[in-house]
């Protein structure tokens, strides 16, 4: 999505005073909301460098009202002085982190593959499965979006136990794929609809098979859409908590579950909690800043006709 510069400001200027009042209001509101968005993140990051006293006294600004300390990161085994020593907490953390990476990347990839194929088929060909036509099949896929996780969670708990997939990453991957599949199909359908059919017709005349045309002609054009869908799926899977909390216990636990289970019986270790939360949000924060364009593209697919 390109940023359109609005050039009607000239007509807005009625008098310098009202122009400045207008500007001040707009920037004031922008800064205010930016503060609301960023302060919790700032609080999380700074708290990971605080000691107990600094937390309970509500100190806010590092070096001014408190001296930063590696306490939180040391408890995770990730501070400069503990990084080369063995640390069970760090091993645990890395295991959870890798679980999160594997499940979210795995589920997003699987969803992109089967979702793109289905979306392509639905935009290009007419299907009849018994009395189901294209519209019904599309509706069937998209209606999965409504399905709340809680409906599937308990049956899956029982089924996975029977199939021996409880507390496995593959079990989570399958469920996450199901969760993001409607969104992927939604985005990809929009993408494929925007690609002219003539391109493939030309390719078919030139002797490519329909799958050849898909892989050699359509896919390269639709790649940005696929990236957008992939990133949006990544975000949803990485942050998913409900299924992970119910269906994993020791092996396949993901980062959000680890974060949520930190409340010990002897109170909360704010600093280590904050360090963990920081580590959990950093990957997506980086993705969000670097690939914001794709995220927005994914979210606005099909919204504006």
């Amino acid at each position: 999505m390109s940023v359109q510069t609005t050039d009607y400001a000239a007509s807005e200027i009625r008098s310098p005073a009202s122009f400045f009042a207008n500007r001040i209001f707009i920037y004031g509101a922008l800064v205010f909301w930016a503060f609301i968005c960023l302060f919790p993140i700032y609080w999380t990051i700074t708290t990971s460098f605080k000691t107990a006293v600094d937390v309970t006294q509500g100190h806010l600004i590092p070096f001014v009202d408190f001296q930063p300390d590696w306490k939180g990161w040391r408890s995770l085994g990730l501070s400069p002085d503990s990084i080369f020593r063995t640390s069970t907490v760090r091993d645990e953390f890395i295991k959870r982190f890798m679980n999160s990476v594997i499940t979210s990347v795995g589920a997003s990839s699987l969803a992109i593959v089967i979702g793109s194929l289905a979306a392509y088929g639905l935009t290009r060909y007419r299907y009849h499965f018994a009395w189901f036509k294209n519209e019904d099949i599309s509706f069937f896929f998209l209606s999965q979006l409504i399905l709340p996780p809680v409906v599937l969670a308990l049956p899956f708990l029982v089924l996975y136990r029977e199939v021996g997939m409880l507390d496995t990453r593959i079990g989570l991957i399958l469920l996450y794929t199901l969760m993001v599949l409607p969104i992927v199909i939604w985005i990809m359908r929009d993408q494929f609809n925007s690609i002219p059919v003539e391109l493939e017709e030309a390719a078919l005349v030139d002797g490519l098979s329909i799958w050849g045309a898909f892989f050699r002609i359509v896919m390269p054009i639709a790649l940005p859409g696929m990236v957008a869908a992939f990133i949006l799926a990544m975000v949803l899977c990485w942050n998913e908590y409900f299924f992970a909390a119910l269906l994993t216990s020791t092996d396949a636990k993901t980062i959000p579950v680890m974060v949520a289970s930190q409340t010990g019986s002897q109170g909360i270790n704010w600093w280590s909690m904050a360090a963990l939360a920081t580590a959990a949000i950093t990957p997506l924060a980086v993705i969000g800043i670097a690939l914001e364009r794709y995220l927005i593209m994914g979210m606005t697919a099909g919204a504006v006709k």
Partner: protein
Amino acid sequence: MADQTLPTDAWPANAAPSDLISPGRKRLGRALMAAATLGLLAVIAVQILYKTEVDTIGFETWRPVVYAYVLWGVALGIGQVLTRGEDGQRALFLLPALLFTIAMVIFPTLFGFYIALTDWNLSSFSGRKFNGLDNFWQMLADPYYRNALFNMVLYVLAVLVEYVIAFGLALLLNAQIRARKFFRVVFLMPLMLSPVAVSWMIGKSLMEYRFGPAAELARQLGWENPAFFSNPITARISIMVLDAWTFIPFMMIMLLAGLQAMSREVLEAARVDGANAWQTFWQVTFPLMLPVSVTAIILRIIFKLKLADIIITVTSGGPGGATDSVSSFIYREYRDRSNVGYGTMLAMAYLIIIIVFVTWLLKFANRFVRNVN
């Protein structure tokens, strides 16, 4: 197999390929599909017999059935191509997603309806007992479930407030400003971050009664006793705020896209006609934005109906179930009491309510948009 395949790709796409397929190839495809189906049924039958202890040959878990289903899907795909040629190749685009979704949704949901009719507590040794509609009657009499449903109504209504804020932010971002990209990234940030981690940090530390900066600020503003999560009403509002913080960017981005897609001429025309900013907004911008707004609100409501993680981490439904959403209530029903049968009944009832509600919402929204425009 290879000597029987015809070079279908040498033919133009429109030529009917079905009559170009040799009978032998068709037979092969049918045989393959039949064999795969028989194989799948056989594995299931053996497993049922083993589990009901009729025979002694079988597998420890049901996992081989999963593999058999995958193999059956592959065989079905190959069979389609063999028997129907190019039509089969087309079907191949749709088959993986379709088989996947059917296996992952239809079967568990049906199974769920069965579980809902049983008395099944995972922590007791008696196993599952069919008990008909007992769970259903228990559900009707359950004040906590009713309370959770009522909370969902409140949470869904909060979407309207979120919409107003999101619209305001979209307008701000669409105004002529510097550093637009910076503000857009910043405003988008909350959506990216793990709701569990963030709600933990906000709910349990920023809003902490004794030292949290938010509580401090509330005291400064004159709230004597800023306990965000101890009184049912403030606790609900706090949960709404936390959830809104995460999801406002989602609506904002959709609305911003709508604003940017709007034609400049219409706004220009309104201005030439002497409309002031307020009139332009209400009589031009807002009506034109209605379809996008409705899409954004409906999608947001659908996400809202799934709300659980924030509540589970921050309040665990407290105080006294006041903040429970349906999902978090069922989650605790399972986690604390291992009550699978009753929990599933609650979930299934919720599913039906949601389906009815969303269908109505879509119809209503359709009519609403058509009437206004």
